[in-house]
């Protein structure tokens, strides 16, 4: 267990916090299942990192919500906001539980792989090599969703996570791309990132 971060109050829009927590928790579920599926301890570690982030966000949200309450009416309606935040935190905890199964080597029965073969959309994690044609291209330009049917759901750049990257985001060498798509598209993305495929067909 690492150190638990001391959380300091920061004035942040509660709405922005909720939206980020929602995006993160959904991403974590996808990532956690893929960690179990591919027996990837690395991915599992990434899920636990994100879980810490969600914990921090929950605290900051609670602090902001408390400061926002001025009367009984405020308190009633902010209780709803806090409840939603707590539920979102619970979803991220569930993702972390999956990650822990992987990290503790409890093992996931081979049956899980079969179950996931029935799920159409696959998840993948690829690292962008220096000779990849993706390097320095904007996601909006690449149109991976339209061309190969793959959605980039996150990019890890060093320690930083870019969740639901915007069209303006450029892919850089060394980026770790987490994507979801049909099996063929996922394979194509892998080739593109590793430089074994040098052109993106229209």
């Amino acid at each position: 267990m690492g150190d638990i971060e001391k959380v300091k109050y920061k004035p942040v829009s509660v709405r922005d916090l909720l939206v980020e927590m929602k995006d993160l928790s959904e991403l974590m579920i996808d990532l956690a299942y893929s960690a179990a599926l591919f027996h990837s301890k690395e991915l599992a570690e990434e899920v636990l990192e994100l879980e810490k982030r969600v914990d921090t966000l929950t605290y900051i949200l609670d602090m902001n919500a408390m400061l926002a309450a001025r009367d009984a009416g405020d308190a009633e309606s902010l209780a709803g906001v806090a409840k939603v935040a707590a539920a979102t935190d619970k979803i991220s905890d569930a993702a972390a539980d999956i990650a822990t199964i992987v990290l503790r080597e409890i093992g996931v029965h081979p049956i899980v792989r079969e179950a996931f073969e029935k799920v159409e959309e696959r998840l993948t994690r690829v690292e962008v090599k220096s000779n990849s044609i993706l390097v320095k291209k904007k996601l909006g330009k690449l149109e991976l969703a339209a061309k190969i049917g793959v959605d980039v759901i996150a990019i890890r750049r060093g320690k930083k996570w870019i969740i639901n990257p915007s069209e303006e985001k450029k892919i850089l060498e060394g980026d770790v791309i987490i994507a979801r798509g049909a099996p063929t598209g996922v394979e194509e993305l892998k080739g593109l990132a590793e430089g074994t495929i040098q052109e993106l067909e229209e």
Partner: protein
Amino acid sequence: MLSRRKPFKKIVNQLVELKDTSELMMDLAYSSLLLNSRELAEEVRELEDHVDDLHTDFELLVLSSGFKPEESKDFLGLIRLGIVTEKIADAAAEIAEVVLRGLEPHPVLRLMIEEAEETVTRVRVSRKSSLTGRTLRECRLPEETGMWVLAVRRGKKWLRPKPSTVIRSGDVLIASGYAEGEEDLMKLAVGESRLPNKSA
């Protein structure tokens, strides 16, 4: 293939359904909140009961599958995955509960709702609808009507929409989008208007 063994086949199917249903609930729960829709929130609550039943069946199946002592760790992993899906379903139900309690939405939530400017609608697909027999990808509903399909109810089953999901007559589509799109979707579903013919 493991799933040729009968108990395994059932376990696989049950796990797929648990996973799909819990994720569908998550989508519906957030949508119910953002759109302040009691109707969607009710659906989430009903699905929660359904997941509880599924989960119990799943655990019983796993426990009665006759695994060997050396396999017990793998089976523990399975049981835990089941617990996770149940936990996600619970969290979704808690979100829906906020809507059902009818707590006066806080300005923050109201802001989200207003900003969304979206409505949720449900339409039943008739036999003569041009949507029948087509995949969601082919229907291009977001382009044609501005409505996104959040869930498909087929009989007692809930499906999480995928591009490859084929729409059948009798399906109930739950969709969100701008109010203007609602009527367009309704017309397509009952067959009053038709999708443009497939062209290259």
